[in-house]
């Protein structure tokens, strides 16, 4: 029984149940009741939809656990040996996004690409270097020069002052 509850599918259903309770707890900050002449209050829509979501994900959980108790599914949720790369890419993305506000997009993005292309993807330097160098340049001209959208630069902001002077 416990093993069936701890299966990935059950855990995901449990997560959705938790999420819907959290949503309901937030939704009651606004009136959820029916105001006779004006219909439901601002909290009603999120509250009752979360309630339906809770019911539906409970249904998924019950069915998963029952099916698992009756006939355990031997297939693993993640392909063996492939969960490592997925976690690695997720971690690298987290670090990159965190770095964007600290050292800026134009340091974080090339670092990420260098790691992904060369060390994760094992591409040759001939493929890696042009992409790592070229992408930030294209990003700069597309977003900053053409669209006037300033990407986060963090502490590297002063380095861009001369470029701003040229293009704006």
């Amino acid at each position: 029984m416990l093993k069936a509850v701890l299966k990935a599918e059950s855990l995901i259903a449990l997560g959705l149940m938790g999420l819907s309770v959290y949503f309901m707890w937030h939704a009651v900050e606004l009136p959820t009741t029916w105001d006779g002449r004006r219909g439901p209050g601002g909290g009603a829509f999120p509250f009752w939809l979360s309630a339906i979501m809770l019911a539906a994900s409970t249904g998924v959980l019950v069915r998963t656990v029952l099916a698992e108790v009756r006939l355990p599914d031997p297939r693993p949720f993640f392909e063996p040996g492939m969960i490592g790369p997925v976690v690695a890419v997720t971690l690298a993305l987290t670090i990159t996004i965190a770095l964007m506000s600290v050292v800026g997009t134009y340091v974080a993005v090339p670092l990420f690409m260098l790691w992904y292309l060369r060390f994760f993807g094992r591409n040759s330097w001939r493929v890696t270097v042009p992409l790592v160098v070229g992408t930030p340049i294209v990003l700069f001209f597309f977003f900053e020069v053409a669209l006037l959208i300033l990407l986060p630069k963090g502490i590297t902001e002063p380095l861009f002052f001369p470029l701003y002077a040229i293009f704006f």
Partner: protein
Amino acid sequence: MEVLSLLGQGFATSLLPLNIGIVIVGVTLGLFIGAMPGLGSVNGVAIVLPLTFIVPPASAIIFLAALYYGAMYGGAISSILLGIPGSSTAVATTFDGRPMAQQGRAGLALIAAAVASFVGGTISVVLFTVFAMPLAELALKFGPAENFALVLLAFTTFVGLGGDDAFKTVAMICLGLVLSTVGLDLISGQPRLIFFDMPGFYAGISFLVLAIGVYGIGEVLWTVERSKVEPTVTPAKVTWAEMRAGFAVLSRTWKTMGVGSVMGFFVGMLPAAGATPASLMAYGIAKSTSREPDSFGKGNVEGVVAPETANNAASTGSLLPMLSLGIPGSPTTALLLGGMVMWGLTPGPMLFVEQADFVWGLISSLYTANLAAVLINLALIPVFVWALRMPFTVLCTLVLVLCIVGGFAPDQRMHDVWLILAFGVVGYLLRKADYPLAPLVLALVLGPVMERSFRQALISAQGDVTTFVTRPLSATFIGLALLFFMLPLLSRLWARRGGSRAA
């Protein structure tokens, strides 16, 4: 005849040099995105949408529609050359496309796919032109009650026809709808669901953030887990002689093309159906009506023609309810709808009245996009063969960088970029556990429409719920919605009764 003059005026817009250029760039980009294994029209539109700020709104929509078309054509290329469908809409194309390539007939398969896509696209655009106005005129009579009932109907088709688990579908619809209520209450303006008191949530959760997360980052994580071995590309050369021979073969498949186009168009209009089931159904019909059904799956050219006409026709079909009712028929059109709202255009019947120039410009550009797609597709086949040799990791890196930077660009908030990452990981896990993601994205886009029309209808009826069932059109939609919602239950009961009788 009024339609023809409106279409003529539309061509005046779509044949402007800027718009022709935009169609060509959009179609080419779409072809490449579609040809990449794993990436389809919905990924392409999600990733590229933030980049379209560079052109005026009307051109941006034309660009995205062209990209959508290009991606539908391109899906067949990797199905044939790699044996891996470019996206789920091109799965049926692998059944016969791959065997043809292995027999050395990759060139013919590619020609057949391109021409079939063109026929499917063109027939469906004509149908679109005919049906758009009457549907929009009908929709002009809709009040809030009808709009609510229609959105409800759209969601219940996922439960009844989506083919996914009903509990999981309902959970995803509700999750999307609840996420759409984050921010300020539509009627009273009070803040609600401001998680962890983060100021970023006051502006709500943009459909783009969810879409880039799920279809950009989530898709890459999905690919990373699956891409243990690099696939092999089948070489393909297309010569003039082969082209001529191809047209001769294809001229004998007109019946399959006709059936695929018309059926694809109508299946595509349904929110839960769309291009994937349409292509599978067309394949099934072609096989069962064929004189030699056994040759299907072994490299019959009709097995490529049928799904390719149907999936292109379906993608046009799904544009119809989006444009004339404001209810998208697929995740990709939901993103187009979100994009239009972002640019200040409200899809729906009023668009045909207030922005007739734009609407007909867009419709006529579908004709030009189709023509551009078939020509560019045939001309660039050698380039696709070369591009498919690109390592997965290069593609993944570029997509991830575009997701992060493109997600930041529209509102320039790091808050959105973090949300994209979170949605990417959650979307990947949900997809692994067989939760359907299309209703989630559709619900986030349609949530505000649903809540606003529900509450407006009740305010104007002074709190009387029966307003939804006393108005004939609204009652019809609600009745249909109930039917779709009960469909999984009914079919189970049916099966049980049939089963017990047999036993």
